[in-house]
């Protein structure tokens, strides 16, 4: 059968090209040209896009800037983070409830002005590392108070970590919250009582294995 031979041989050769040689070349090229980006080892470094902050209840941690609420969960079988948005429709009751709860937490933390919408809505990936400069700005007084820094000093750090739109028209102005928090720790380490609380929280988190996973 001519058709059979053509089908099998073309499929096999294209498989080798597209699924063997091509990814191999990309992997080799990436390792040579961009080794750090390729392995994802930039997490927590400048230029990193990935969040490293999974506060179960962020309001426990006044010393850190709070990021966006997350719809991501941890897969109980493998322990890896399962990226996901909430998928709430605009009229879903849970959307309203969660935004209201988040607004209340922010008000309780001392925020008085308008609350930027990105700080109370879940991102698409559940791993969004960024906030709008406004959403960071309303948290500055709390950070300054909790860390015993001046607001101007915190403001200076925020300004260093604020990125504008790329080329002036791509993407929104934003602040990488993880990098900002790491910079805070570098500038003024958290108080001993806070460090102790954090260690306890980590211990209890690892003790209670397999967190509940929400519906994808």
């Amino acid at each position, binding site marked *: 059968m001519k058709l059979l*031979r*053509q*089908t*099998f041989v073309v*499929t096999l050769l*294209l498989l080798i*090209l*597209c*699924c063997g040689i*091509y*990814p191999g070349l*990309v*992997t080799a090229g*990436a390792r040579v*040209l*961009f080794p750090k*980006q*390729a*392995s*994802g*080892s930039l997490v927590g470094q400048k230029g990193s*896009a990935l969040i490293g*902050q*999974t*506060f179960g209840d962020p309001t426990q941690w006044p010393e850190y800037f709070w990021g*966006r609420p997350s719809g*991501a969960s941890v*897969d109980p079988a*493998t322990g*890896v*983070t*399962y*990226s*996901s948005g909430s*998928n709430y*429709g*605009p*009229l*879903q009751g849970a*959307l*309203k409830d969660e*935004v209201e709860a988040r*607004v*209340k937490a922010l008000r309780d933390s001392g925020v008085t002005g308008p609350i930027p919408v*990105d700080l*109370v*809505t*879940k*991102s*698409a*990936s559940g*791993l969004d590392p960024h906030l*709008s400069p406004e959403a960071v700005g309303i948290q500055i007084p709390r950070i300054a108070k909790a860390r015993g820094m001046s607001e101007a000093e915190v403001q200076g750090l925020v300004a260093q970590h604020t990125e504008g*739109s*790329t080329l002036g028209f*791509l*993407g929104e102005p*934003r602040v990488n919250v993880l990098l900002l928090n790491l910079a805070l720790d570098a500038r003024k380490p958290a108080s001993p009582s806070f460090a102790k609380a954090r260690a306890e929280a*980590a211990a209890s*988190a690892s003790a209670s294995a397999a967190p509940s996973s929400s519906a994808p």
Partner: protein
Amino acid sequence: MRVFVLDLVFFAVLVLVAVPLGRFMTRVFAGENHTSRKILGILERGIYRAAGVEQDKEHTWRAYAGAMLAFSLLTQLVTYAVLRLQHKLPFNPTKLDAVAPWLAFNTSVSFTTNTNWQSYGGETTLSYASQAVGLTSHNFFSAGVGMCVAIALIRGLARSQRDTLGNFWVDLVRVHLYVLLPICLFYALFLVSQGVIQTWEGPASWAALDGSTQSVLRGPVASQEAIKMLGTNGGGYFNANSAHPWENPTPLSNFVQMLSIWAIPAALCVTLGDMVKSPKHGWAVFGAMTFIAVLGIVAATWFETKGNPVLARAGAAVATNLEGKEVRFGVPDSALFTVVTTGASCGAVNAMHDSYTPLGGLVPLLNMQLGEIVFGGVGAGMYGILVYVILAVFLAGLMVGRTPEYLGKKIDSRDVRFASIYVLIPAFSILLFTAAGLLTEAGRSGIMNAGPDGAPHPHGFSEVLYAYTSATANNGSAFAGLTAFSTQHPVFYSLTLGLAMHVGRFPLIIAVLAIAGNMAKKKLVPAGAGSFPVDNTLFVGLLVGVILIVGALTFFPALAIGPIVEHIQMTR
């Protein structure tokens, strides 16, 4: 304002990419000796020799369709086997078990048909081998098949009194060697430079600020990502697709991803103009696509910016809908991405469509229901809009009482019959399957967005309508709240969505090839004073009119029950 600059620059760069790429593809498919062929020609000839392909022996439309079906069937079986055997194969760092039978069926159909509907989450279901071989192979193959069919149809239009449309294997090998693979190689490396990962190492773990350990899966993402976009496939490596910071890290990577979705479909307009020797006709088709695209971009941007009053009432400063959107993209880059991905048959997402406002979410729905001809899938968009062109010319002929004629070829009843089949099959598939989803307990069980106490809600209806629209149109994006695979109901959505994807792909391709074969046989007569011109604004207007009227008449009732009712509820 940023949004205007963004959208304008996007279209400008699209044209700048489409012209050289389109001209290059004309030369590739004509078998000319371009520079890259001087380098890779040995490989090309080697493949023909090994497979026993005679370069100069062309296929009739039936033989072309037969080879296409044989190739698609075999590659679908390969993917099914890889998914079912992934626990026995290497590159499985998180020790995942075999993919469940129905899920493997659905996924193999999904990638074979260029749909890339994902009933699974990448992180928790697929090994690196399944991603890189089982899925990435189809990202290339299904794109290649689509382009072959489009070229065969254009050849049918351009030729006079011939029985053949070209050799499927030759077209397929050339499109891989000279178009898809070289572009992807450079594109993937660009993505890595932006922060898309490309590694075979297992998950990365680190201590989060609160002391807990966070672990995120890695893998060969960049190589898959490049062809996922360029081939308008859209199946994400991670569950969050192009919203994941490792799949689409920066606004620049986002811009290039959008561009790469429409690059080949837009370039095919140039190829069309070249091959039928009427560049202005190619640009007229480009213009019709652009017009519909702009309507969608304006609507999506407007409704997402205006947002959801619920957010403002709950205490946010503005109602702008950022639920399900990433801060680095905001509304402008998300809305544009949504129109690009659903106008093409891509289906990658950088924002969650399920969380769009009702009318913002209507835009991607309608884009798919119009048949994905707003640039469309690679190849699929071109042959899709050419079917509409044939209908438009036919209607114009009826209106003035002349024999309809397109590019010097009389349109006969056989052409119109197959064109009607092409338009009717998706309509039946979308509406009947949606009805089945709503009438069965298994179908309703997958719906996430319900009213208080689980009462039926227009958004739940939209989730089901979106699923079958996306599957039939071979798009693959979702109102992702819908659970399409669960251990309680493993069969219903896997089977029905799988059928919808097949119905929306192969019968339509066969109809297109039948038209192509019929056209090729006809004698090319020079255009006369009575021919309907297909290169001016009147033609663009007529084409847009036919597309919108056919789409609107077919789907308005369904859209009224879903997004439109929900919009009224939201704003009252």
